[in-house]
Each structure stands twice: as structure tokens, then as C-alpha cells.
């Protein structure tokens, strides 16, 4: 179908396509072509990433490697894809394509016309960064791409200034915290580079293993430099991931960003952060040093994740802006992902990987539904949503279906991930964590019900503006994502196959 030559180049093309097309968008300027180019880039990348994931899953070793400039492995930049990568890559590409389709009408109503080409250029750079982070096998390259995506994200969040000026303060808050996080990551990579003398992730992992062995006598001792570097890395990534005590930038950034940007960020940015932590903990530093070394990191993560689930859900209940409810709910969902990879067993990791995908679908779809509300009403306050269920049946139906996914009702994708998570927690003997997951689901019922009740049983105010269902280009991607989240809840074979393969490769079990 695809010529071999082209197929070989896919890993590089996935990152280069949005980068070069983004530049061209910025160069062409004010012709209204921006959205078309962005859409083209997203579709190409989506097709490429699906092809790549198929390649990975059908190759015997579960890896595809691409050498930039044909430099041999420890010296050059290597793009390396395994099931974990491939899964996250497909998630990012799918969400990007869907949200780009959604963005056309939504962004046109929120961003001034003469800045549109600039918006789509930055939009493509953001995708470049996110895709690059997931695909690269080089630690420093990861930092650079992380900063590209972060800088693009700050700009995109600040573009919400047309509707609400608080977008600007949210963006600067995010910028300060995000830059500190990225600097910590840079410092952590510096420490690991100092110990190992390499930047290639696999090479780094091997050399760190060798260091552990020579260092360990009777009982393995871990070099302080490695542990310091890991501590910096972990704190930095947690800032990007918005793990509980470091989540303060998230609610405002999601709330005041343009609707399409909220959908993209909620569905991809923090997920990529989760991917980075899994990669650093499991592949590079290794669970022996990270969890069973001098610092029991998994206990910290579990405490943070538990707090995130409980407090995130609790704060979500108290909000009056629906976008903020979803933002706090995102914090809770990140708690589930973090809990999954802190459990350090196969079911827990599978839960984390599968929840990255499932939650991206669900949250992306729900933020799009809110985008429809913002497109028609101009804001997303809870009292303005009263009785919208009859006015916007499709979007509100999609919102409700997504809300069921957040709760984890059977036959939705959320149920699959929570099933794995609870199984993993019980397997690891962490009954209190399993209990917290269940309590979190109950709290989710409360905040979802609060919105659903307002939508369907609230009375529309007298003299409230008459609203119609959104245009088709906004409905299709929303229904696509919500439909997918239900499909993968009913038939979880594909996702769990990939997620289990990812977990097995990470834990070093031979497939």
C-alpha cells in the first residue's frame, strides 16, 4: 500500500510534517488557508502513526528504530517506537486530527480573523512538540520538543484573551510553573548525562544498570547522583503532568483557553507528561532505583494520586463553571493514571496506558461539547446551561455519555481502565488505593450528575437567547471521540492488547 521507502521514513515524517507545514502556514499569511493546511497535516500524521503502530505491533521485537542522519546509536538522535510510544502517539494524532476538524468554526469565533494563520501555525508547532516527545529516544531531544510544545501551549492559552482577559494571567502562571518544571527536567537530564555520558535513552538505561551492579555489594546501593537527577526529573515531569500538589496552573489554563485549545490540551498535553514519567521511571532509571532505592517514589506518587483523586473530584463538585468542573476532574483522572504506574505491576501499568487513551477520548469529546456551548452561548457557566438538553440534544447527549465514561460505568471506556486499576491495586495489596478509586468514582457521579441535572431538568430562563444545534463540522469530531470511547468500552480487545504489550515491554517480561 505504502512504498517501502516511504514507510521507512515515517518516524521522521511524523514530526517534520507539522513543523514544515506550520512554517508554511506562518509564511503564507492572511489567506484563510491556515485551517486547511493544519487539517492536512493532522490527517497525514494520523495515517502515519496508525501505520507505525501496526508496524511496531507486528515486528517481532516490538520496536521500530529510526536514526536521524544515519548516525550510529549512542551518538546520533534515535527515534524509537515501542508499544507504549506507539499507543500514545496514535492517541495524540487521533485527538489532534479530531480537534483540528472541530477547531475551524470554534476558533473563528474566538480568535480575531487576522491572527488565524498565526493560531494555526502555533497549533501545528504544538502538535510537533507533542508528537516528537512521544517518538524520540533521546533524552535531550525530549527536553527541546517538550519546550516547543510548552511554548506553543502558552501562546495558545493566551489566545483566549478575546473572550476573557483572565486567559492572559492563566497563561503567564502556566508559563512560570511550566518553565520551572522544564528547567528541572533539564537539570535531571544533566545529572544522568554526567553519570552515564550518553543521551540515548536505551544506552543510558544500560549504562545505569551497569553502574548499579558495580556499585551494589550485598545490597544494591544507588549512586546519589542518579537519585538526585531522578528526583529533579520526577518533580519537573510532575509539574508538566499536573500531579496533585503541582496542579495549580491547570484549572485556569483549561478554563480560559479557547474551546478547541482546551480540548487539545486536556486530551494530549498531560497525557504526554504521563508518558514521560512512565518512560523515565520504567525504561531509564528503572524501578529498582526509583521505587526500591533510597527514595520510595511509588509511595509519594500513590499519596499524591490518592489526594488528586479525592481532592480533585471534591473541588470539581464545588465549581460553578462547567469548564472548571472538567478541569478539576482532569486532575483527578491524572491521579488514576499516576496511581496506575505507581503500582509497579502489569495490571497497574496496563491501566495507566489504557487510561491515557480512554481518558483522552472522553475528555476531548466532553471539552468539545462545551466548545459547542461556548460557541452558541458565549460562556460555560453552570446556570446558563439550564435546560440546554432540549436545545442541543446531540452535544448534550455526547456530554452525558462522556460523563458516564468519567464515572466508569460499564460499557464505557472508563470502566475498562478502572477495572484494570482496581485489579492491579488489589494484586499489589493496596486495598486502600482500590477503595480510593471507588470513592473517586462516587464523587465523579456527584459532579457529573450536577451538570446533567442542570442540563436536562433545569428550566431555561425567560428571555434566554434561542440556541440551535452546532454546525456539522463541530458535531462530527465530537461524536467520533465519544463514540470511540463507547466502542472501546464495549470491545476493549485492541486497546488492551496494545496496553498489555506496552506493560510487558516496560516490565521486561518477554512477550
Amino acid at each position: 500500500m505504502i512504498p517501502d521507502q516511504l514507510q521507512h521514513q515515517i518516524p521522521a515524517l511524523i514530526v517534520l510534517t507539522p513543523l514544515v507545514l506550520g512554517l508554511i502556514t506562518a509564511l503564507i499569511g492572511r489567506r484563510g488557508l491556515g485551517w486547511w493546511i493544519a487539517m492536512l497535516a493532522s490527517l497525514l500524521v494520523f495515517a502515519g502513526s496508525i501505520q507505525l503502530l501496526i508496524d511496531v505491533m507486528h515486528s517481532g521485537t516490538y520496536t521500530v528504530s529510526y536514526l536521524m542522519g544515519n548516525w550510529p546509536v549512542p551518538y546520533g538522535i534515535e527515534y524509537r517506537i515501542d508499544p507504549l510510544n506507539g499507543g500514545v502517539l496514535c492517541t495524540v494524532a487521533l485527538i489532534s486530527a479530531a480537534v483540528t476538524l472541530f477547531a475551524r468554526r470554534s476558533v473563528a469565533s474566538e480568535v480575531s480573523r487576522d491572527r488565524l494563520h498565526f493560531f494555526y501555525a502555533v497549533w501545528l508547532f504544538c502538535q510537533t512538540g507533542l508528537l516528537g516527545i512521544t517518538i524520540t529516544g533521546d533524552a535531550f531531544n525530549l527536553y527541546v520538543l517538550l519546550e516547543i510544545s510548552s511554548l506553543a501551549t502558552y501562546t495558545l492559552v493566551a489566545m483566549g484573551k478575546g473572550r476573557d482577559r483572565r486567559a492572559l494571567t492563566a497563561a503567564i502562571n502556566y508559563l512560570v510553573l511550566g518553565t520551572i518544571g522544564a528547567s528541572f527536567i533539564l537539570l535531571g537530564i544533566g545529572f544522568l548525562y554526567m553519570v552515564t555520558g550518553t543521551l540515548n535513552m536505551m544506552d543510558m538505561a544500560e549504562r545505569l544498570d551497569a553502574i548499579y551492579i558495580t556499585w551494589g555489594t550485598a545490597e544494591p546501593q544507588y549512586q546519589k547522583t542518579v537519585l538526585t537527577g531522578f528526583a529533579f526529573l520526577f518533580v519537573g515531569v510532575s509539574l508538566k503532568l499536573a500531579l496533585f500538589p503541582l496542579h495549580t496552573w491547570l484549572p485556569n489554563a483549561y478554563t480560559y483557553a479557547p474551546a478547541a485549545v482546551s480540548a487539545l490540551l486536556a486530551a494530549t498535553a498531560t497525557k504526554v507528561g504521563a508518558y514521560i514519567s512512565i518512560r523515565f521511571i520504567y525504561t531509564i532509571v528503572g524501578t529498582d532505583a526509583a521505587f526500591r532505592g533510597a527514595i520510595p517514589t511509588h509511595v509519594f506518587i500513590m499519596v499524591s494520586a490518592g489526594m488528586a483523586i479525592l481532592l480533585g473530584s471534591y473541588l470539581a463538585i464545588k465549581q460553578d463553571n462547567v469548564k472548571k468542573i472538567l478541569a478539576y476532574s482532569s486532575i483527578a483522572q491524572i491521579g488514576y493514571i499516576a496511581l496506575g504506574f505507581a503500582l509497579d505491576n502489569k495490571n497497574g501499568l496496563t491501566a495507566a496506558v489504557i487510561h491515557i487513551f480512554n481518558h483522552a477520548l472522553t475528555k476531548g469529546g466532553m471539552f468539545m461539547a462545551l466548545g459547542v456551548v461556548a460557541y452558541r452561548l458565549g460562556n460555560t457557566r453552570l446556570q446558563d446551561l439550564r435546560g440546554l438538553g432540549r436545545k442541543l440534544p446531540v452535544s448534550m447527549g455526547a456530554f452525558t455519555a462522556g460523563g458516564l465514561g468519567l464515572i466508569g460505568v460499564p460499557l464505557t471506556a472508563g470502566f475498562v481502565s478502572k477495572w484494570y486499576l482496581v485489579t492491579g491495586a488489589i494484586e499489589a495489596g493496596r486495598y486502600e488505593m482500590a477503595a480510593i478509586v471507588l470513592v473517586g468514582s462516587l464523587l465523579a457521579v456527584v459532579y457529573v450528575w450536577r451538570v446533567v441535572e442542570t442540563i436536562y431538568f433545569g428550566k431555561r430562563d425567560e428571555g434566554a437567547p434561542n440556541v440551535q444545534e452546532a454546525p456539522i463540522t463541530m458535531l462530527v469530531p465530537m461524536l467520533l471521540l465519544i463514540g470511540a470511547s463507547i466502542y472501546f468500552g464495549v470491545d476493549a480487545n485492541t486497546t488492551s492488547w496494545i496496553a498489555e504489550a506496552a506493560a510487558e515491554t516496560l516490565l521486561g517480561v518477554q512477550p
Partner: protein
Amino acid sequence: MLDFLHDHYNYWVTIIIMMIGFYAVVAKSNLVKKAIGLGIFQTGIFLFYISIGKVDGGTAPVKVMGEQTDVVYSNPLPHALILTAIVVSVSTLAVALAIIVNIREKFGSIDEHDLNHLEAEQE
């Protein structure tokens, strides 16, 4: 003790510069000063990278002219990495300043306390 301080002086310099920057980020309420603090914070990390690239007795990693073959060079890789990181840092500063200019236009202030009040009023 003195030896400990002296042997790790690059770490001390890094830590001191980073903490000066971090102090500015945390304690100053003026957003431009926060942005400058971020710059100082990152500069500390750049110095750390440069210092780990130093090889004992190594000279600058530019090829020495002539027939000498036993020249020891410092490790140029951290320098190249930091060149990239400096570009990133400059871009961050540019984005931060652009956002701050916009904040000044929309709110009429770049002081964090004022901004908090203005936001609370808007609620």
C-alpha cells in the same frame, strides 16, 4: 569542610544562581521581574552543564592548527546542548514578555496583587 566546598564549587555556584532566580520568581510580584528571575534560574542550569563538560587539562574544543596530535579537548557536547537550551530560554522570555505586554493592555497593571484583585472583581 573547606575541601568539600572547594571541590564542588561549580555545584555551589549553580545552586546559588538558581536560588537567586527562584527567589525572584517566588517573591517578586512584578511579572517582568518574575520573567527575569526565570532567566537567572535557567542560567544557573546552563553553567552546570558547561561545568560538567570541562575535562581536566582540556582546552577549548576548537581544533588546534598544526601537527599536534596529543591535544586534550573539553567535551563539546554540553556546549552544543546548552546552545539549544539558550535558544529555548530566549524564546521563553520572548513569549513571557509578549504575554505581559498583553496583560498590561487588558488589565492596566503588571503587578500580581493588582491582578488578583482585578480578577476577583471580575468573578
